[in-house]
Every structure is written in structure tokens, then in C-alpha cells.
């Protein structure tokens, strides 16, 4: 087994560069190392100016999303051993503006996430004396998969529609909206409907399915979007057949 592996890392300095370029580093190859370990080694020993995001190093914070050989991945969960001996190319997430090196600007995603109102909406809150909102395991099962999202934005990097149309809400935002829509404690589905049932939200999705393939937490946002399309279509039929508004 080779003792080193080559990393081609995308570098971009907004003060001096017009476009990103690749810089090659030789990094020790350890069987248990992930790409994040290699990046940390580069920053510690080779080039301290290398800029990237990371935090928990265990696949739950969603900070370290990058493109590894063109594929959106969490670098803390991507083993060098899977790529050795070929070089590993590390780039910032696709479809986002690059701020510096491997760091992208995520303001757009944060704004879209806010607009789907990802919190429990109640018409009226129960008083404390009545205790908690109870939920059966069956009711939890309905939305649990969609609650696994760690906001890592790998799905946005994989989604071609988001790359082509910056106004598209994107997989994670809609999946999280569904997570709350399907929660038995939530009463805000009608509040989220106007934002979701429009061309820049669910109707822009063409079910490419890449978002589901790259999701590290198996959230299946594509399924969430298609299921919501069905809900929205049924709502539309109801609004056409009962224009005076049934509940």
C-alpha cells in the first residue's frame, strides 16, 4: 500500500484570483483517514491558508460538504482508502457562490429554509397544564425520515434544476416543509401551501432524483417533493370542485 496520496484541492482567493485553480498536495495515506483528515493535515503542515468548513467530524453537523471527484460528499465520511491510489479532487459544493477556497455562501439556502416555516405551527397552543403533545410511533414514522436532514446542502449541489434556476427552492427546503406538514402536532400545512405550490418550488422539480442519491442521512427529498405534488394536486382539485372552500 502506498504511503502517500495526492489531493488536488480547489483554491480561490477573492483578493487575487479571478477564478479557482487547483493546488496539489501529497498527504500521508492512512487506511482510517477521511478526506477531512487530509485537509486538516494540509492546513496544519503544508498550507495554513487553506480555508474550509468542518465541525463535528462525525456526519451530523452538515458543515463539511464538498465535491470529492465531482460527487457531493461529507468529507468527514469519505475515506481516502476508497480512492487510493488515484488522486482525490476536492472542490467546493456545486451551484453555490464560492467565497474562498472550499467555502461557499449559503445565504440563499438559509433564506429559502426560513420561507417554508420549518417549525410547528399551531392555531392555538395547549396550556401547560394539559401536558405534552402526544404522538404514537406510527405518527412519528410518517415524517421521521424527513426529519433526519442535517442541512448539509449536498442535495443542492446535486440538483441540476437548482443549478439552472437560482430561484428554485431546492430539495432540503421542501423536504423540511413536508417534515412539518406530516407532523401530527402541526397545524400549519395551509400556511406553507402558497410558498410550496408554485413554479419555483415543487412544480419546478423534474424528479431527477440526484438529491436522494447523494443524501448522507437517507432523507429522500425527491420522494417528499413528489408526495407533496400529489397533495397539492388534490388540493387543487378540491379548490376547483368546491370553490366556496371546504375544510
Amino acid at each position, binding site marked *: 500500500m502506498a504511503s502517500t496520496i495526492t489531493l488536488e484541492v480547489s483554491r480561490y482567493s477573492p483578493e487575487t484570483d479571478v477564478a479557482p485553480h487547483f493546488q496539489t498536495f501529497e498527504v500521508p495515506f492512512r487506511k482510517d483517514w477521511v478526506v477531512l483528515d487530509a485537509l486538516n493535515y494540509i492546513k496544519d503542515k503544508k498550507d495554513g491558508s487553506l480555508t474550509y468548513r468542518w465541525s463535528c467530524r462525525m456526519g451530523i453537523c452538515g458543515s463539511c460538504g464538498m465535491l470529492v471527484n465531482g460527487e457531493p460528499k461529507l468529507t468527514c465520511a469519505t475515506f481516502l482508502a476508497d480512492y487510493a491510489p488515484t488522486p482525490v479532487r476536492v472542490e467546493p459544493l456545486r451551484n453555490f457562490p464560492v467565497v474562498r477556497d472550499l467555502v461557499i455562501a449559503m445565504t440563499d439556502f438559509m433564506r429559502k429554509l426560513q420561507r417554508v416555516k420549518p417549525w410547528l405551527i399551531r392555531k392555538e397552543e395547549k396550556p401547560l397544564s394539559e401536558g405534552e403533545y402526544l404522538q404514537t410511533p406510527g405518527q412519528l414514522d410518517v415524517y421521521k425520515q424527513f426529519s433526519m436532514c442535517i442541512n448539509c446542502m449536498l442535495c443542492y449541489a446535486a440538483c441540476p*434544476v437548482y443549478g439552472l434556476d437560482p*430561484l428554485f427552492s431546492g430539495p432540503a427546503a421542501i423536504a423540511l416543509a413536508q417534515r412539518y406538514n406530516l407532523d401530527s402536532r402541526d397545524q400549519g400545512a395551509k400556511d406553507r401551501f*402558497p410558498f410550496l*405550490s*408554485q*413554479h419555483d418550488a415543487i*412544480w419546478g422539480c*423534474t424528479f431527477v432524483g440526484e438529491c436522494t442519491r447523494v443524501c448522507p442521512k437517507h432523507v429522500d427529498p425527491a420522494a417528499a417533493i413528489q408526495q407533496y405534488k400529489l397533495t397539492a*394536486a388534490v388540493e387543487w*382539485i378540491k379548490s376547483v370542485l368546491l370553490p366556496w372552500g371546504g375544510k
Partner: protein
Amino acid sequence: MEAKPSQLRLEPLLWILFSAGGVVAAFLIPVQLFLQGLVFPLGWAKGPDYATTAAFVAHPLVRLYLFVLCSIPLFHAAHRIRYTLYDGLQIKHLNEVIAVCCYGGAVFGTLVAGYLLWSFH
């Protein structure tokens, strides 16, 4: 950003037509294309002759079946082609033109199918 009311009313309908067309096309088209495009012309099996086919198509239930087969899948194709042109070729400035051409073509095809099957003798 809230949707325009007209958009709220059209997109769900187009998606419903797209889904229905997909179901019809998936279940019913392969076998018919296989038989009429490959099996009968290549002589792997003997197809119905002219008189039998004409009598068959004239039956009202067959006319209805053929109408469904030749109308709704057109909307499925129109919807997919429209989005592929919109995304694939990035010609967003022609968005309205593409939509009108695609769905208009599907409507035209439906009318042709309806006319042909209604006036068949």
C-alpha cells in the same frame, strides 16, 4: 415570493395530465408498439387483416380506448419535453413560447384523435 393566481391554477392540472399520461403510456404503449412496429412487419406472427382491423377500430369501446391512448400520453410528452427544453437548453426567455408550443401541440393532437375516431367508418 407568492405565486400568481394563474400559475396556481395551471401547474397542478398540467402535472395531473402528465401523471395520467405517464400511467397510460407505461402500461399500454410498449406491447402495441412491439406488435405493430416489430412483430407484424417482421412476420413473427400474423396480424389482423384490413377488414378485421377496420371492424375492430369501429367498435365504440375500442374507439374510446384508442382516444385515451392517443390523447393523454401527448400531454405527458408535452410536459416532459417542455421541461427538458427549459432546463436542458436553458432557453428560459422562450419559456412562454415553449409552453404554448408543447401543450398546444398536445391539444391539437387530442383534437385530431377525437376527430379521426369520431368520424371513423
